[in-house]
């Protein structure tokens, strides 16, 4: 039985983070509103053993959760801080085996989620054959294209996360989310059992009743809980609202080059009051 309950409106990202049980499989989109405040809230609550699926790649979100010891397994097409350089905590955790890595490639992550989105057990995908990814991902199979002759094609199994974590520019008090051009958030939400959302702004009026907004909305039926988190993507950017905090990102990249610096960064973050209480 689905959708009986309304979206619950929570007071803060910290309350959202309490909805994520240890060991949950969570999925997060690479940009257009990365739920960084929710990531910090997960660290503050001491989340453990998360299985993190990045769509299809990640940067600070994955690196920071790994740095704080919240992640047991990461499934990703790549983790990098982009113009700010390598993701040191990710690389360290993979090299020492403290995090289990399930390496993928961007369209394979999408294919797995879209299979779940369509309710099919797998999605065919071109490419990949001959890549060592096929050697290390024994869940990726090669099947015969029934419409070809001697035409192998890869089957990517459905990825069905427990929880999609999203951060959006605008939501309404009913739980409808305006996702803008980030149509991928629809895939995340529909492939996942539940969606926990934070929003820069929560408005009173039903945004589905505005035809221009409605065209790019994720309806509340997919959203289990919603909390307001102003500047919730900081220090990453929120397109149309604020840019990346380059100074902070450069500092993070520099400080976390060594494990000791990482420990200090995480300690400061846990000891700081949550953003909502500042």
């Amino acid at each position, binding site marked *: 039985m689905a959708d009986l309950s309304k979206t619950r409106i929570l007071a803060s990202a910290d309350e959202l983070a309490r909805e994520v049980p240890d060991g949950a499989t969570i999925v997060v*989109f*690479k*940009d*257009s509103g990365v739920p960084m405040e929710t990531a910090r809230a997960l660290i503050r609550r001491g989340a453990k053993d998360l299985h993190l699926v990045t*769509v*299809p*790649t990640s940067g600070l979100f994955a690196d920071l959760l790994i740095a704080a010891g919240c992640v047991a397994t990461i499934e*990703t*097409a*790549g*983790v*990098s801080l*982009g*113009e700010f350089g*390598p*993701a040191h905590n*990710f*690389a360290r955790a*993979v*090299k*020492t*085996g403290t995090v*289990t*890595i399930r*390496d*993928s*490639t*961007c*369209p*394979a992550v*999408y294919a797995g989620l*879209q299979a779940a989105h369509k309710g099919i057990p797998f999605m065919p*995908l*071109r*490419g*990949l*054959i*001959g*890549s*060592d*990814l096929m050697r*290390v991902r024994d869940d990726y199979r090669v099947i015969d294209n029934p419409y*070809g002759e*001697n*035409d*192998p*094609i890869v089957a990517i199994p459905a990825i069905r996360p427990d929880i999609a974590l999203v951060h959006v520019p605008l939501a309404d008090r009913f739980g409808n989310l305006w996702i803008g*051009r*980030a*149509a*991928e958030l629809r*895939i995340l939400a529909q492939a996942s059992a539940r969606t926990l959302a934070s929003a820069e702004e929560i408005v009173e009026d039903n945004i589905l009743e505005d035809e221009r907004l409605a065209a790019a909305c994720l309806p509340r039926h997919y959203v289990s809980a919603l909390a307001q988190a102003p500047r919730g993507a900081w220090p990453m950017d929120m*397109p149309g609202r604020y840019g990346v905090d380059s100074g902070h990102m450069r500092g993070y990249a520099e400080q976390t080059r060594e494990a000791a610096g990482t420990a200090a960064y995480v300690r400061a973050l846990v000891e700081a009051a949550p953003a909502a209480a500042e």
Partner: protein
Amino acid sequence: MITAIAGLLEGCGHIAVGVLSPIPGSAALLTRARTGARVSIIGSADPEFRTDGGVDLFDSAGQGRIDAFFLSGGQIDGEANVNLTGIGEYPELDVRWSGAFGSAYLYFLVPRVILFRAEHTRRIFVPRVDFVSAPGTSAPNVYRPGGPYALVTNLCVMRFDRAAARFRLQSLHPGHTLEEVRDNTGFDFDAADDPAVTPLPDPTTVSLIRGDVARDIAGPYPQFARDVLGTTGP
């Protein structure tokens, strides 16, 4: 290098570039200024260049709507295998890089993949990659409309012969020698005894680069436009 890459893009209708690739980006925009080709810059906010978000790029490639793409690598070998994953024994590697990103797919689907790496050393150009993130060649029955087309470095331009699975030197950049390239390349490749020299841009191209291209590139790559092409942006 911008001009050399633009030469490799001749006839392409739609070129996709990463937002962290200003030199390939400039070459793509030069091609755009010359022929009207469409350029998509992954991660760009500019409506003229942006792609529809992550999944659209891969769907477009699957539809055959992307003609050229750029790929780099932590290691690249003589069969054009690309390693973006790391050095050592998987999974607990000695050096761990970011990961394969879209390479294991786009390398199969995009007709002209241009390998670009400014640093031409034996550290990068190895006899055999430690991890094949994306293979340079495939068995004949594997669906593969795309693949490696050329390699551009700070020393030279090579073309890739898919049937022979070997690189062939196309031209040396002015001031560099075949011996220097052989010394800095860990794999064997074909070359004429007296290789051609990469042509310098003609005056029309220079003015296009300093004009249209510098203006266009200042949006997605402001720092590059300022520092390298000498513009202050729009």
